[in-house]
């Protein structure tokens, strides 16, 4: 026994048509049929066990932490559905061989169809909730593909999308429901779930789970109010309708209800929801079907109605009702599939599905007409046909319920009315199409279809008759075992016979027949009456709803994401403010126990200078050059602050970075507007001021609290090990090149990347070059003042000397590669400023890109060097050497590292600045286009 193959065979079969398509249509169809047939054979092989009352199971562990196993069960219900799915599936394969035109890609069609078949098979033999859901969703996907098969047609696309959306939404609800059920019983194993019906029904979450599962079932089975997608799915090729929309996919919802009948049914809630939904759907479908001029439309609403009937039966909470439901599943599948196929033949042979044009086809295709008429009579519930039997059972069940309390007598009445309409539309199908005068404006002259196209219909119609006449022999056992899996506790006595004597249900049937005939006879009045109501087109409504949702989301998005950076930053800052400020509310006292330093005049002066300059930067930010001057004052004071509070390295770095930044800003400012207009409204200004002010308060408060709290940090280690472990007395530098050299490596990489990025930015830049300054003054005619030239070139060697000095001492006293690099760069930039690009270009031919790469490489290779000594990356080495006369000196790998830093810095800064300088020099043109 290997149930896996039952689903695996069709799955593999999905690929078959894609491979065999090229060998001809018949071969393709034949080859496609092989694997499903094999699978059907397997099922039939196992059927014996099932009829013996043995359910089959197989389980393979898959994703245990999700509760997903490959787990299969074959019981009566599965067997019934498998026979329908695989059996009708094979018939549809045959039918489609003749239905599809040579323009249609047969391979693709069959692939989708078999994929669908696989997923249906998967649903019905799943023994694991999540696996079941997995196949459930696969049916939605494959049906989407099938409905949209003729994707160039707008209605096909829309219909497919609608079906996908509705069933997809239902699928998500189902997932939630299944997960809830799984949570209640703590297992996703179907056996476990089915064994715990009482636990589930008594659980607080049961109503939610029930509703979610039912949402899944109702959407799939086109129950009111989710029925609207089904008629639009008729845009699919007719074999699809015959398969999906009569026999299989729409039955998946029914299957689900049947499958969970043991655990979910039996409560008042189930009863109310399921039976009322079923009833409404039954009536609505039957009524609307009558008015459809499209053959497939009629059949689609008829399907809705019959699905409502089955749902109603399942909702009655009666064992016999369930049996009747299952019986009707079989019956509906057979007659509806054959009707769809017949409709397809009519469409195929006459070129139309419009019943107003189709008339008197009996003359043209009597054989097909006979088949269709028999199937339609079955649909109408005429005795000796299978439809009659299940309808009788249905009537009987409507008499045994009490949905509406003392008003429950209405239900059989309504059931009869529904049945009458069913008779009416069946009559219409028969009379309007095959009789009723001559065809009108048909694109083709109708004729009988190819021989084998009729075979599937013949088989199905034969089944209708066989079941209708010998129900107990033909389906009795199957119905029992299927019902047993649904009811679990035993199947009630039911009599599958044509004749039950004169009873109320028979009377109701007769009433329905007569009523139906009457309705059809007086149809003109009814049509006229109906024409007063605008028939809502579900497609338009649905598309409209989706459109308005999309519009609404677009409104939200454009309102929120209005493309304003200022807004985004405001959000960021507000969020920061909340995050930073709220914890401070817990802080009862700002100042900690750390002794504070006394205030002195020097510091106060610095503070005053810094704050005033910062404020001046803000006040004059629209006069950019001015603001820049104030900004550099702030920078200067910041470096003095570092010097003041014992951080000479920081002071040096800040200073040199400061100058390079100022130069860079100046360079850029030349290409930017010099001044800005007043743009922000006063309210905006005050709002921004409030936000930034509050943030300042938060940061200041935290800073104060931090400064006054004692700190026990890891730093003592660095001070203790700087000399002994790192070989240098400047602890900050040793941290940079040794203890945390990895940070520094990252940092110079950042610098290098920035330079590359900037070069990239510059490379494609087309810049406007101002021919005058912001006050309209033309530029001075002295590009390279002589004194500046002279002094700058004299200072260059000095500056280089200083950078060597700063570099060499870095390890032991303030300095280091970074600062040295900046000094060198500044000295070279000074040459550029004094002499200009043209003068420099032939004199400095260094490739700065290589310099950056070489620098980083140098730093990295000192790190890699330690691998040779079997030490981790960036392990440093240093030693003291003694040379005669010269004396003792230290060599350290950290110095090579620092040299790498030096080269990277020089390379990066020069790559940026020198190329930026070249921008304007290469071509100067007038600033003609100025938007601001």
């Amino acid at each position, binding site marked *: 026994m290997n149930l896996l193959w039952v689903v695996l065979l069709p799955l593999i079969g999905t690929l078959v048509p894609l491979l065999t398509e090229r060998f001809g249509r018949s071969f393709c169809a034949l080859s496609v049929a092989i694997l499903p047939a094999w699978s059907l054979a397997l099922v039939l092989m196992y059927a014996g066990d099932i009829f013996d009352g043995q359910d089959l199971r197989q389980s393979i562990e898959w994703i245990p932490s999700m509760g997903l196993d490959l787990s299969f069960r074959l019981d009566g219900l599965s067997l019934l559905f498998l026979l329908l799915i695989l059996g009708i599936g094979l018939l549809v394969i045959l039918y489609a061989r003749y239905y599809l035109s040579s323009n249609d890609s047969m391979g693709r069609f069959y692939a989708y169809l078999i994929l669908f078949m696989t997923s249906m098979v998967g649903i019905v033999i799943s023994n694991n909730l999540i696996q079941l859901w997995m196949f459930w969703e696969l049916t939605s996907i494959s049906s989407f593909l099938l409905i949209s098969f003729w994707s160039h047609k707008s209605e096909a696309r829309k219909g497919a999308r609608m079906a996908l959306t509705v069933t997809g939404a239902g699928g998500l609800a189902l997932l939630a429901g299944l997960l809830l059920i799984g949570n209640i019983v703590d297992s996703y194993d179907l056996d476990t779930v089915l064994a715990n019906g009482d636990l589930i029904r008594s659980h607080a979450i049961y109503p939610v789970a029930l509703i979610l599962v039912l949402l899944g079932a109702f959407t799939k089975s086109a129950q009111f109010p989710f029925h609207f997608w089904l008629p639009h799915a008729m845009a699919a090729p007719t074999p699809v309708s015959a398969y999906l929309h009569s026999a299989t996919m729409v039955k998946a919802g029914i299957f689900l209800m049947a499958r969970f009948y043991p655990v979910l049914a039996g409560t008042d809630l189930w009863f109310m929801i399921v039976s009322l939904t079923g009833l409404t759907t039954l009536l609505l479908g039957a009524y609307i079907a009558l008015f459809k001029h499209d053959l497939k439309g009629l059949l689609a609403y008829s399907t809705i109605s019959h699905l409502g009937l089955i749902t109603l039966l399942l909702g009655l909470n009666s064992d016999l009702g369930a049996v009747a439901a299952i019986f009707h599943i079989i019956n509906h599948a057979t007659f509806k599939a054959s009707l769809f196929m017949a409709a397809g033949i009519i469409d195929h042979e006459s070129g139309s599905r419009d019943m107003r044009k189709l008339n008197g086809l009996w003359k043209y295709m009597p054989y097909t007409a006979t088949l269709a008429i028999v199937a339609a009579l079955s649909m109408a519930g005429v005795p000796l046909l299978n439809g009659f039997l299940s309808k009788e059972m249905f009537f009987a069940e409507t008499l045994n319920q009490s949905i509406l309390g003392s008003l429950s007598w209405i239900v059989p009445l309504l059931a009869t009315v529904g049945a009458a309409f069913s008779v009416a539309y069946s009559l219409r199908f028969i009379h309007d199409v095959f009789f009723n005068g001559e065809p009108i404006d048909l694109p083709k002259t109708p004729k009988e279809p190819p021989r084998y196209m009729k075979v599937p219909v013949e088989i199905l119609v034969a089944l209708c008759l066989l079941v209708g006449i010998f129900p107990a022999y033909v389906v009795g056992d199957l119905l029992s075992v299927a019902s047993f899996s649904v009811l679990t506790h035993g199947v009630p006595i039911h009599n599958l016979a044509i004749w039950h004597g004169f009873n109320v249900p028979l009377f109701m049937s007769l009433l329905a027949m007569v009523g139906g005939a009457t309705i059809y006879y007086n149809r003109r009045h009814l049509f006229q009456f109906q024409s007063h109501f605008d028939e809502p087109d579900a497609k338009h409504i649905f598309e409209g709803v989706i459109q308005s949702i999309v519009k609404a989301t677009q409104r939200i998005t454009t309102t929120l994401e209005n493309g304003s950076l200022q807004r985004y930053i405001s959000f960021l800052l507000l969020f920061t403010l909340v995050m930073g400020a709220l914890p401070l509310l817990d802080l009862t006292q700002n100042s900690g126990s750390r002794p504070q330093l006394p205030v002195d005049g020097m510091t106060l002066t610095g503070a005053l200078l810094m704050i005033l300059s910062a404020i001046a930067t803000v006040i004059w930010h629209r006069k950019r050059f001015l603001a820049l001057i104030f900004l550099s004052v702030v920078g200067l004071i910041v470096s003095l602050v570092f010097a003041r509070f014992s951080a000479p390295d920081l002071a040096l770095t800040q200073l040199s970075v400061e100058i390079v930044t100022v130069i860079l800003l100046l360079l850029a400012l030349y290409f930017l507007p010099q001044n800005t207009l007043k743009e922000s409204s006063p309210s905006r200004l005050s709002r921004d001021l409030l936000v930034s002010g509050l943030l300042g308060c938060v940061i200041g408060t935290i800073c104060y609290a931090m400064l006054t709290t004692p700190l026990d940090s890891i730093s003592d280690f660095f001070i203790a090990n700087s000399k002994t472990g790192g070989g240098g007395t400047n602890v900050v530098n040793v941290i940079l090149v040794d203890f945390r050299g990895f940070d520094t490596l990252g940092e110079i990489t950042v610098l290098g990347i920035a330079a590359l990025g900037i070069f990239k930015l510059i490379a494609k830049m087309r810049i406007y070059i101002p021919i005058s300054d912001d006050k309209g*003054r033309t530029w001075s005619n*002295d590009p390279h003042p002589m004194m500046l030239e002279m002094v700058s070139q004299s200072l260059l060697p000095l500056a280089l000397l200083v950078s060597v000095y700063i570099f060499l001492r870095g390890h032991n006293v303030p300095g280091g590669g970074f600062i040295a690099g900046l000094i060198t760069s500044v000295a070279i930039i000074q040459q550029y400023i004094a002499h200009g690009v043209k003068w420099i270009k032939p004199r400095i031919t260094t490739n700065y890109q290589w310099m950056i790469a070489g620098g980083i490489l140098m730093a990295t290779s000192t790190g890699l060097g330690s691998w040779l000594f079997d030490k981790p990356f960036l392990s440093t080495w240093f030693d003291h050497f003694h040379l005669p006369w010269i004396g003792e000196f230290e060599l350290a790998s950290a110095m090579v590292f620092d040299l790498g830093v030096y080269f990277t810095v020089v390379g990066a800064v020069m790559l940026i600045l020198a190329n930026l300088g070249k921008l304007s020099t290469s071509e100067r043109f007038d600033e003609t286009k100025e938007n601001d």
Partner: protein
Amino acid sequence: MEFWIELIVSVFLVTGAVFVFIGSLGLAKLPDFYTRLHAPTKATTLGMSCLLIASVVLVSFRGGYLSLHELLITLFLLITAPVTAHMLAKTAMHHKLDIVDRTSDKELAKKARERMAP
């Protein structure tokens, strides 16, 4: 520390600071840009030199070795101050800044601006 050393250092310190201050004072109070330019260019160079000499003396005595590297700063300042002044004067002329009325030969500034002979 010896009294004399302390005295020398103190005198240099105060003198230097006074000159620095005068430079800044001149910058603040003189009537036009060109006159203002004089104050820091000159006063600060001497002021700075005095301060640096004070530092040289002090450090040399504290450390017990001759510490002359402060002189380097003086050197830098002496080299760069005139260029700075020159460049600033150029910018001032370029911007045709107001020249205080009693300046004689104001026209020369226009010639200088164009770098022509007078």
